[in-house]
Structures are given as C-alpha cells and as structure tokens.
C-alpha cells in the first residue's frame, strides 16, 4: 500500500509540474525524458528475455515516418495515425524477428542492428521519405478541435503515453506472460522444461516492445514537426541501451525512467560541448559497467554493504564504540 501511495504522489506531482516549471526549455527536457523512458522500457522488455536489441532507433523511426506520412499524404487524423505508427513498427518487428529469432539471441542482436541501419539508409536515400534533408512540415497533433502546440500540452500528451505504457507493461510483467519472460531471462533450459515456448514468448516481447517504440516515434514526429534520418542513427539505439543500463537493467520499468532522467539532465548541468558529449557518455558508461553493474537503482541494494563499510571505518576511527 505504501508503494501505491508513493506512486500516486509522484503522479500528482508530475501532473502539477507545468504549473511550477515555467521554463519551456526545462519542460522540453522533461518531454525528452519521458520519450526516452518509453524507448528504454521497450528495450527492457526484450532484455527481460535476455534479448539485446541494438535497433530501437530503427523501430522508433518506422513509427514516426508511418504516422507522419499518413497524416501528411493521406490526411489521416492524428489519433489514428499514432497507433498506426505503433502497429507498423510492430509488424516490421514481427517480420524481421520471426526470422532472426530462429538463430538465437546473438543473431537477434546483429539483425536488429543491421535492420535499424538499413531503415536509416532507406529513409535517407528514397525521396518519397524526404531524403537526407528529412521530412519537413509535419503538422502538430490535432484531436478533435484541440490543436497541440504549447510545450505544456505536449507534456501532458507524452505523460499520458508514458503512464499508459507503464500500466500496460506492469500488467504484462505481473501476469503469467511476464513470469514466463522472467523464467526465460534467468534460465532458458529450465523455462523450456516447464513448458515455455521460448521462441514465441521472445517474439511476443520484441513485437510488443517495438509497438511502443513506434507509438513514441509518432509522438516525436508530431512534436518536432520534422524527421531527419540521421536522428535515428546507430548512436541513438546505443543511447537507449545506456539509459536502461545506467538506471539498472534489473529494474524493467523504473530503470529506464531513472536512467533517461539522469542522462537527459546531467549533460545540461555540465554544459559540455555537444561534440564532447559522446566521449563523456562513453567514459561514464564504462565506469558504471565496471563499478556499478546493477545501475543507479542498485545503490539501494548495496546500502547494507555501504553501512558495513561505514561501520568498519567508524570503528577504525573510534567514532563508533566497538563494545556495543
């Protein structure tokens, strides 16, 4: 119950946030945090099955371009285009991964990377998709008579998507499906012996994960009003992995959120030059992998250890009585 009230409080705070934060740039960063959280959770869902996707950006792009093209070329209303973006991404994932998964996790990993790369190449070279200059003048979302154009309105929209996403993933993770995924994640052999069809469950996880990547891609397209293929480069997929890892890979929902938050805001605090950012990220990532492989959230798990260490140092310094 305590957890539930905590979550309710957090939600109320998030809803009230635009009343407090008036700076549109900060709100923009919060919107990016939410977006990357959704992407990170999509990655986590596959990671729960010990599948590593290096192609999140590709599926993000598929969703974004599908939705943008539907709206601009076919004048489909936005609220239909957004799920369509998700479905397109999911179908693409179904097609690619139903084949790739036959080869096991490493082939899945490589194929996801290669297919994301190809998606970027195709989007850049085919003029129908706008070429390397990008797809411009994507209209903002319009639901009924309401036109989204302020940062606040976009913030509420992405918050709604994020909350829906969390609810859906939570429902999945606590059901039998989620338990089967956990089983596959901890031991494929034992999971198989207990009757889990590994191929099918892994495929389901990757398709569902890619669906949400597509949905948030659609949001991104209409929020930015333009799509440039190089946004969806290999580096972007890697960033998503970094966010999930930095938050904590064993926290399938909270990990990506915490990781995205830290990694979106930290560079802003450092005010590092744009081109030095990847170097900084890379170095930070290596340090975290070596010294805190469980991610930031695992600090909590390590607290008893820190406490013991503190006690030992305290005794050494005679700050704590050794007799008690």
């Amino acid at each position: 119950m305590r957890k539930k009230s905590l979550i309710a409080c957090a939600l109320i705070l998030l809803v009230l946030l635009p009343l407090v934060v008036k700076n549109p740039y900060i709100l923009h960063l919060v919107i990016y945090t939410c977006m990357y959280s959704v992407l990170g959770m999509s990655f986590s869902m596959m990671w729960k099955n010990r599948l590593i996707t290096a192609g999140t950006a590709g599926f993000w792009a598929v969703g974004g371009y599908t939705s943008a093209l539907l709206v601009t070329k076919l004048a489909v209303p936005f609220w239909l285009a957004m799920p369509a973006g998700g479905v397109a991404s999911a179908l693409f994932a179904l097609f690619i991964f139903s084949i790739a998964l036959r080869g096991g996790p490493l082939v899945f990993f490589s194929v996801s990377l290669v297919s994301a790369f190809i998606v970027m190449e195709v989007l850049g070279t085919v003029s129908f998709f706008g070429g390397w200059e990008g797809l411009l003048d994507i209209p903002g979302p319009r639901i009924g008579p309401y036109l989204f154009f302020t940062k606040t309105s976009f913030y509420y929209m992405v918050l709604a998507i994020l909350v829906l996403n969390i609810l859906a993933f939570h429902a999945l993770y606590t059901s039998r499906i989620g338990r089967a995924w956990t089983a596959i994640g901890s031991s494929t052999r034992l999971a198989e012996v207990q009757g889990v069809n590994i191929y099918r469950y892994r495929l389901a996880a990757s398709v569902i994960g890619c669906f949400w990547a597509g949905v948030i891609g659609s949001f991104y397209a209409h929020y930015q009003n333009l799509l440039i293929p190089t946004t969806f480069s290999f580096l972007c997929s890697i960033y998503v992995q970094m966010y999930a890892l930095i938050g904590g890979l064993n926290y399938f929902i909270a990990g990506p959120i915490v990781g995205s938050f830290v990694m979106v805001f930290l560079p802003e605090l450092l005010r590092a030059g744009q081109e030095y950012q990847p170097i900084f990220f890379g170095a930070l990532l290596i340090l975290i992998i070596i010294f805190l492989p469980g991610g930031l959230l695992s600090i909590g798990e390590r607290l008893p250890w820190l406490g013991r260490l503190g006690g030992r140092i305290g005794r050494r310094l005679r700050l704590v009585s050794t007799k008690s």
Partner: protein
Amino acid sequence: MALLEIRNLSQHFGGVAAVSRLDLDIFDSEILGLIGPNGAGKTTLFNVISGFYTPSTGSVALKGERVSGLRPDEIAKKGIGRTFQQTVLFMRSSVFDNVVTGFHMNYTSGLMNQFLHTRSAKDEENGIKKEAARILEFMGLSALKDELAQNLPHGHQRTLGICVALAANPQLLLLDEPLTGMNPTETLTTLDHIRQLKDRGITIIIVEHNMKAVMSLCERLVVLNHGEKIAEGKCEEIQDNKAVIEAYLGKERR
C-alpha cells in the same frame, strides 16, 4: 503397456556415441534407477528424453505417442518433467515465485484475461498460488518461501528444483542426481518425499551416485556403460552382476 518406450535409441556427438542402440521400458508408477559410471550417458539420455537433443536414431514414445523430435516445451506439455544435474533455478526469484513460474502450462485463462487481470484470471492465479504453497509444504520448504533462490543452501536448492518440476504436474519425472550436496538427514527426507510422489502415481526415473539410497528406493535398476545398457533387473540381481562390477571397478587383471 509401458508408460515410456525407448526403442533403438542412439545419440552421436561427432564420432562418439553417448547413447547407443538403447531399448528401455518404463512402467506406470515405478521408480527406476539409472546408474553407471561417469560419462556412461545417463544425463545424455535425460536430455534426449526431455527434448534437448534430437536422437540420431531410434525413438522415444510416451503412452504410445512419439515424443522424440519435439521441442523441450512440447515434451513438457506431454507430461515429462525433469531436474538438472547442476542446480538450475530461477535464481533471482523468490522460492515461492520459482514454484508459481513452474505452473506455467497449467493456466487455462486466455492471454487477454491475463493482461487485463480479470476476475477469472485472478481466481486462477489464487488457485495456483494455493497449489504452489501446498507443494512447498509437502517438500518442507514453506518456511523459506520468501527467500531468493540464490540465497538458499545447496541442499534446499536441490529440493526446490524438484518442487519446480512438480509444479508442471508431470506424469513422468526425471531426477538427475537429486541427492548431491545433501546431508544424511536431508537425504532421508528427500527419499521419503520421492516415495510419496510415487504413491501419488508419478513415475520416476532417478540418476544417482549414492548407491545405498538408490537400492533402498528403486524396485528396478538399469545400468549404463559407454552408452550401452549392460544390465537390467532387480536390485539384488544387479549387485551380483559381473558386468556391472567390472564397469564400476574396471576389469580385474589376471
């Protein structure tokens, strides 16, 4: 008719035959001991029966229905459960969750119900949780049900392995060295549990190096050496069998 029929079964790795031309019948509600020196092909046989390997030749049939060539999860659904030689558990889950996960195939409610957590899905969930608690009670792990599996002592991990296998509600249970790492008291209780499982109608094949335990447990023994069956019969017959003694102690030099 036999519950499990193994006919002319061979399993080659490269040029090496880990199991060769094996014929074996396992009857309903018996405990069959499978013994033999290290590398005799016992674990390989288990891996073939449970579907991790597709046999090079021959077949395995459960109740007259061919199961060899199916995937491990399909074979599990036909009613064959197993444990592993090295302890394999869902290490980062609690003991209770381990067993609940084991119930994977017993769910009947649809995926949509599962996703939406409807009433029927919840009822089913509760029923399964009760079942899981009963299994833990039966195997004597109730007190530890909230521990993480990785924190259990080794003997308890072995027991938990059996619990997880039982959760799948198998007709035939393959136990791969279930007594390794147990102290004498634990061994005795586990043997008792295995006997009770048999009384409940579960057929059991057991691979075990603890001969005293095997002799007290099994009605029938099969001895493998170099992948071939060298003896089969009642415990007393096996004890005096020349070929078996040779296999274990090596040929006496004359």
